[in-house]
């Protein structure tokens, strides 16, 4: 599909490249590292999934990229390159200019992400007023067109309604409409369908796919659902305790994981299971941020753990074409 050769300048630059991102979090009991050296990149037209269990730092990573981190958290290292420029070095005003036309985010909870006391047509039209200087009337027309595009029935009438007057699925469509209004290069979707029923989830996923194709967007899809990743993403970044433990093309990674955690997650899916037979579960649960061990982050739950894992944190090493994993013994997984 992508036929860009390395020699063609410009075309190969990722739409978004996150490099060694670190985020610290101030808590009552001290500072903890919530995101620890996360790197990934995604090109236009491609979908990258950030996969991991709750609390592993997916949302913090996303919020750092769009500059919407909570005051308790701060980026302490790394770079977030958009069209090649590091946004972390930009002024707040410069960054605000990117929000919408270049980078955009869809949150899980549309009800809190939308303004409850403003008609939705106004909200969806707002980016056009701010970034393109359209009049209120013109912005409303654009909003209605977008509402039509994302599948809101009777958009002209519904533009006057308030967020709570829509179903969960329709609100998510509204949020998506707002996020794609200015045709961003990169759309980050943080668990966009987690709260929705499957038939509605499928509709929203198709909508996102269609919009991505139409607008040639890069999509960063944040999810804890392996099946969603398998179905929807090109590449996957598996996170654990604030770090990237494995990274690569989805099919390669899911077919033959090179990190015991990825392997454990895949085995835990009850899809191929035999009824009545125990599922191969990963024992224990992820560490608290304040108690992430100094060696391998996964050591407490890893079936392959040994002395070296306790002593030394494994760095991400190449394990195949376009693939990396942070495990001292990933070759052993390759053999089984």
């Amino acid at each position: 599909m992508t036929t860009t050769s390395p020699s063609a300048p410009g075309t190969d630059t990722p739409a978004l490249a996150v490099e060694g991102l670190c985020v610290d979090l101030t808590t009552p009991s001290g500072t903890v590292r919530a995101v620890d050296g996360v790197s990934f990149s995604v090109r236009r037209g491609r979908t990258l999934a950030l996969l991991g269990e709750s609390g592993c730092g997916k949302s913090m990573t996303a919020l750092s990229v769009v500059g919407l981190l909570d005051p308790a958290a701060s980026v302490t290292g790394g770079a977030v390159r958009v069209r090649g420029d590091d946004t972390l070095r930009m002024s707040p005003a410069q960054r605000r200019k990117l929000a919408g036309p270049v980078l955009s985010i869809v949150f899980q909870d549309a009800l809190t992400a939308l303004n409850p006391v403003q008609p939705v047509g106004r909200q969806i039209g707002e980016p056009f007023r701010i970034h393109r200087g359209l009049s209120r009337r013109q912005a409303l027309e654009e909003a209605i067109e977008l509402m039509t595009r994302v599948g809101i029935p009777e958009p002209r009438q519904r533009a006057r309604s308030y967020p709570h007057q829509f179903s969960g699925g329709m609100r998510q469509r509204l949020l998506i409409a707002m996020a794609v209004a200015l045709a961003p290069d990169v759309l980050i979707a943080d668990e966009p369908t987690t709260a929705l029923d499957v038939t509605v989830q499928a509709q929203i996923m198709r909508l996102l796919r269609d919009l991505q194709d139409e607008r040639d967007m890069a999509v960063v899809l944040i999810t804890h659902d392996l099946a969603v990743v398998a179905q929807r993403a090109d590449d996957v970044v598996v996170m654990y305790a604030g770090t990237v433990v494995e990274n690569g093309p989805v099919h390669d990674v899911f077919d033959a994981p090179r990190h015991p955690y990825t392997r454990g997650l895949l085995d835990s899916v009850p899809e191929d299971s035999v009824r009545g037979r125990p599922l191969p579960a990963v024992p224990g649960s992820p560490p608290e941020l304040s108690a992430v061990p100094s060696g391998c982050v996964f050591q407490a739950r890893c079936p392959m753990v040994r002395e070296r894992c306790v002593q030394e944190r494994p760095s991400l090493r190449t394990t195949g074409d376009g693939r990396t994993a942070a495990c001292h013994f990933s070759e052993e997984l390759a053999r089984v």
Partner: protein
Amino acid sequence: MSESRATTATSGPYADDPRESPPLLEVRGVTKTFGSGRRRLTALDGVDVRIGRGQTLGLVGESGCGKSTLARVLLGLERPDAGTVRFDGTDPFALRGKDLLAWRRRVQMVFQDPFASLNARMSAAELIGEPWRTHRDVVPDAKAREKRVRELLSLVGLRESDAHRYPNEFSGGQRQRIGIARALALDPDLIVCDEPVSALDLSVQAQVLNVLSELRTRLGVTYVFISHDLSVVRHISDRVTVMYLGKVIEQGDTEDVFERPQHPYTAALMSAAPVLKPSRDARRREIHLQGEIPSPFDIPTGCRFRTRCWRAEDLCASQTPPVVTRGTSDTAEPHTALCHFPLEAESAWA
């Protein structure tokens, strides 16, 4: 009460033949509405369900279809407007006083949110033993209670030393184990699990599913297992009941329903759920359902699924669909669906 439990648990000549053994629970024509006048909604509409002893019944359907309401009826917490509930032959809604208390002990619940459902100020041991305060005769003396708490902790895969820890010291999966131990404290016949693993991460979800399966093997517990996750339901259930807008629209043995769904909604639900390995279901086909679930205040005439059904015809709007049964000789209970134009067994469904 404990007498009758002992006799029914070893149901003699029927024990191995589910076809003959009377169901532990039988629900017939249960209807439940909420509100009144124009604001009356029908949460359950003529629901029939049978659950055999030791079986696990999976209950699936999108939010608002009535799963939790049915669970509350089974627990005796919600009285149906119409229809009957028979638990081991008894109508729980006819019981009073001591009899009701004795019955309550036999049916327990595990909730979705282990954080919200546990009192933060009680230790694990206190939480697990709390039901004994109401049901005093189950484990009468303090020494025996301590011992039983330790047994229960180990049954659900926790350590004895966990007895004196508090909910905030436990992870989500551990709290759910405490919730399960607490449900087990009264040695129930039936445990209703309402989305018990939905709030848990995948790796932890597998642990909790394993605990539930093991308890079934070891103690012979019967489960009603509610989940919106089809692969979880497929893993754990012997039979599956699919609901839509308050009605059971399909019911049958798990593999029958998953492999050969009859109702278009069931097929659509399965098609919509993303799967890790699409190749497993070679006959899978994409069904794109339009629209969302209609309001329960305004249920469509005829077949309630018709506003989203890709097979709908005029008949579906004017006439309530019949119950269709696909015979399978070797199963105890038939595979039924509510549809004018059910899918063929051999059709590529989803």
